[in-house]
């Protein structure tokens, strides 16, 4: 196997709030290979966006990256000077954001903003302009020459996100980080943008890190997936394998909660019981235990580490779905309230 283009090791990012320290990203490690496309999924507040921002050192105040390494081409991005990391941003690692409406400067012409991504990295005005038109065509913006002069508010949401993608690709980066790029768009436009990203990934060999809460997006675009919960990676592996055979109860619940077109009409929408944990006071032991249907006593006290549960597949769970299926009848379980499968309700009010 080729060497990874990006190696994240034990990344830890904290926010110093009035209430105390919130560890938004807690010891995240993963590899990204050239031309690969990985998905990072999780609920709001699981730390997936902060992980992405930490890679480029764009964590907003009062956040601090407290430890870890982000190795890119034999250099640790976390050790670079401000000017060195600025050079990396947009040139080697580009990022596109959730809401194209607010990520484009409303008072500057769209094409000009794509130019700027190149001007920041030493291209001349003429070169930039010519390439911008080419890029706008590449992201399938019709009448690119005319759209160049348009202000963002004159474009549709899909066009704006295409322009953002063009901006991201301006310097032919080796990695494109996409932070929920389709969340703010209509479903049909979502599909077009995903298709565009998949094509670019194939044609240009740009590695893609897709941050999303939508398992469907991951299935369509990515070859590997990392599942995050409460700042930690709880499961990772090849997409098909994870979809086929999730081993962490959280991943299992996430997949179960995708509405199905072929579901029986009277069937209720399945959700995961409970709320994402308060990271100011994360739960003891496994962070998912307060919401987990298959928790055992050990989950309350001991924190599980990621370990291989199948070839290339890692999960951080004391039980794993294999055991839950065999011993707790997970597949037949309709009621998935906490402790429902295992019958462990230690420390709850009902006890």
């Amino acid at each position: 196997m080729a060497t990874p283009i990006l190696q994240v090791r034990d990344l830890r990012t904290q926010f110093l709030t009035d209430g105390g320290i919130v560890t938004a990203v807690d010891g995240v490690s993963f590899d990204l290979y050239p031309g690969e496309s990985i998905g990072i999924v999780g609920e709001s507040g699981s730390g997936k966006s902060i992980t992405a921002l930490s890679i480029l050192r764009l964590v907003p105040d009062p956040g601090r990256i407290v430890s870890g390494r982000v190795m890119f081409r034999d250099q640790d991005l976390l050790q670079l000077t401000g000017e060195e990391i600025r050079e990396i941003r947009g040139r080697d690692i580009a990022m596109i954001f959730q809401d194209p409406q607010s990520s484009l400067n409303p008072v500057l012409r769209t094409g000009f903003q794509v130019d700027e991504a190149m001007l920041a990295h030493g291209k001349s005005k003429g070169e930039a302009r010519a390439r911008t038109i080419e890029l706008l065509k590449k992201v399938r913006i019709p009448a690119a020459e005319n759209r160049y002069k348009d202000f963002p508010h004159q474009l549709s949401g899909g066009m704006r996100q295409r322009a953002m993608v063009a901006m991201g690709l301006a310097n032919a980066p080796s990695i494109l980080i996409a932070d929920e790029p389709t969340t703010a768009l209509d479903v049909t436009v979502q599909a077009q943008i995903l298709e565009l990203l998949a094509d670019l990934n194939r044609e240009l060999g740009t590695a893609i890190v897709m941050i999303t809460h939508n398992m469907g997006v991951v299935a369509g675009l990515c070859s590997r997936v990392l599942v995050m919960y409460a700042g930690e990676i709880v499961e990772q592996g090849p997409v098909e394998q994870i979809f086929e055979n999730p081993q962490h109860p959280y991943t299992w619940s996430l997949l179960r909660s995708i509405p199905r077109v072929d579901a029986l009409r009277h069937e209720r929408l399945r959700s995961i019981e409970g709320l994402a944990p308060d990271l100011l006071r994360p739960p003891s032991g496994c962070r998912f235990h307060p919401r987990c249907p298959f928790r055992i006593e050990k989950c309350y006290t001991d924190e599980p580490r990621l370990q291989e549960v199948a070839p290339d597949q890692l999960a951080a769970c004391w039980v794993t779905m294999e055991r839950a299926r065999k011993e707790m009848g997970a597949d037949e379980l309709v009621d998935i309230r906490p402790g429902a499968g295992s019958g462990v309700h230690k420390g709850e009010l009902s006890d």
Partner: protein
Amino acid sequence: MATAAAVVKRPATLQQASLWSDAWRRLRRNRMALISAVYLVLLVVVALVALVHTPYSYREVGVARPYSGPSSANWFGADILGRDVLSRLMVGAQISLIVGVGTQVLVLAVGVPIGLIAGYYKGWIDTVVSFIINVFYGIPDLLVAMILLLLLGPSLNNIIIAIVATRWMDMTRLVRGQTLALREREFIEAARASGAKPLKILFGHILPNSLGPIIVQATFGVPAAILFEAFLSFLGIGVQPPTPSWGSMAADGLAAIRIAPHMVIAPSIALSLTLMAFNFLGDGLRDALDPRQKR
């Protein structure tokens, strides 16, 4: 078919209107702002004409009988030394405009960069800037201006400097506040993520987004500066004789207000009209540049 195409095309051309042409459209519909703008253009023309021609020399004494009222030879009468009041008003307009516009140019040159840097970098720079602003707000304007004019001497340049010293804080605070809000916006984060240099972010992304409020603030700053200059000249520490300022002309006339009221009334009306015009224009610009107004 042709008509259908024309109908479809129309919203597209309307949409082409950029932020500025939108604002211009709204401004044109504001009658007071428009009248004010016309008045101010005329005032500028008068001030320019005064460079090459005035009915009489503004400093020539005895062109009419002292204290004489308005007549066909001296439209606005004559002053205590028999100088033509109209000619002096015209030269006074130059002074007022130079002071008003000059201070705002300097206020912009000081306030915009300091406000941008303080708002963007926050931390100790912002603490220091905010502290200095508060100190300046704490000292009475008149005291600052008087001390500076005593130290520097009462030339036109020094008057401008003295007024800037009392007026730079508003602009700095405005730009700082705008920057503090804008720096958290997603497009600034996107610019950072694309590797934009800090100076580019400040002047290429944040500044263009705050131009509206800055223009309005500067427009309101002009009459404030004109009034302050008139006040300083009224007190005798502003523009020195024989150069006329509307403020010193009013002060001269005050002594003779019973026998020659035109000496006070003429400069006062000129001053009031000008202040009103700038304020109406500022109001109009504020409404026109407010993006929430979608009329």
